[in-house]
């Protein structure tokens, strides 16, 4: 019987699948988070309540529970489609990720002092312009680091997709373990793989943070990064 080494190509294919599912889910979660985050702050009742319900529901149980429901139970309801395991996985991971991400977005925007919004209004900017040009760019400096943490968590959540048949690294690893019985080697390889994936995710987000226009005043406790020369003129007094 061959060992783990012979199955290495299959292992790497699984790793690529995991990376793919993670990336698509993170992007999906990010997009949905923005939608949900703004809906949570909406002045209108309907979107506010609907998003509140959605967020509380998807934070109320493990993503695994939702995945099993979407993959096994949902197709049995009349009219519901039978989803491909990959599609079901990405859908569930994005939704659950968005439930947590929406809170990050909401908290990030709420953290921007009301005075900024009022100043914008005094200057005659519309709410949308105020958001786009003043509030959100500042909020990003708080949202992105928190979202980086969530993204690393989403990478770890992808381990659940092995249960619905997606050939991710954990699924392949379990198959290899069942054939070669080399438990320690296989599990070590899986653990290291996930750890590296999380590391890469964090580094990518750190790089993303660097590219954001940072407002020094919002980084309580002092900024870790130097301001770009152009920003120095806009520097506010530290709080």
């Amino acid at each position, binding site marked *: 019987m061959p060992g783990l080494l012979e199955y290495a190509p299959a292992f790497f294919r699984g790793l690529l699948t995991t990376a793919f599912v993670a990336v698509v889910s993170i992007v999906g979660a990010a997009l949905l988070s923005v939608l949900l985050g703004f809906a949570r702050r909406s002045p209108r009742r309907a979107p506010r309540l609907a998003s509140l319900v959605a967020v509380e529901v998807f934070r109320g149980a493990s993503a695994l529970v939702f995945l099993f429901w979407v993959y*096994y139970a949902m197709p049995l309801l009349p009219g519901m489609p039978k989803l491909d395991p990959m599609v079901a996985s990405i859908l569930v991971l994005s939704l659950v990720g968005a439930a947590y991400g929406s809170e990050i977005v909401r908290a990030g925007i709420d953290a921007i002092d009301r005075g900024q919004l009022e100043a914008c209004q005094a200057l005659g900017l519309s709410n949308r312009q105020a958001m786009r040009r003043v509030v959100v760019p500042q909020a990003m400096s708080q949202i992105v680091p928190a979202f980086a943490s969530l993204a690393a968590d989403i990478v770890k959540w992808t381990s659940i997709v092995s249960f619905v048949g997606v050939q991710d690294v*954990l699924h392949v690893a379990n198959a290899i373990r069942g054939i070669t019985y080399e438990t320690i080697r296989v*599990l070590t390889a899986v653990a290291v793989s996930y750890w590296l994936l999380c590391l890469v995710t964090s580094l990518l987000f750190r790089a993303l943070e660097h590219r954001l226009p940072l407002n020094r005043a919002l980084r309580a406790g002092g900024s870790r990064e130097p301001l770009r020369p152009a920003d120095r003129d806009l520097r506010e007094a530290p709080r």
Partner: protein
Amino acid sequence: MTWDWAYAASILPDLLYGAWVTIGVTLASSVIALGGGLLIAIAGVTGGRAVHWAIRILIDLLRGVPILVLLYVGFYVLPQAGITLSALPIGIGVLGVVYAAFCSEVYRGALVGIPPGLRDAACALGLSPRQVWQLVLVPLMMRRAAPALMNYVLVLFKQSAFLFALGIPVLLGKAQEAGYASFRYLEPFTMAGLLYLAMNLPFVWLLSRVNPAHGHSAADRPPKPPRMPS
């Protein structure tokens, strides 16, 4: 296929047993996580640089690996190291130890937030180091850390579902067993999902009680990590 109430009723006892196991697992691992986390935090602060860095490195390693993989490691690798336990203690133990590491970070954050003047005052009053910890620091830490710790209990409740992969009869495991045995998946998984959501509600209520600023802007409340899933 539509809903079969008779079948749903027949599997309800099994699912309720699974819910019971879920609650038990959550409580047991929470005790280990909250208690162990406190000990790790104290050790990290009082134990010297080597201990401090060892703990930081361990937490960093644990953070990057899914809990499912850690459960498999505990299940398969521990016996080879001589620790022969059945699946349930291993499941509870792995969850407890891993989240003890994460909780220790919360405790450490709370500890760092206590003004040094308080420690000095306690010292000046002649309290022994042990008394300082017991009477002053730990109660303060607990109060400041409570919201984040409650959050971790909630996380443990949700992570308990993963124990089905070791054969432990948590709610999700019972639902899957029922579905596989009868080829009817709609009722078990829907009921399990609803039960999980229902069990989650008391936690959410408790969380909003402990942290009255839940839902208000970040400026109103002390620094607290957003409700992180794991």
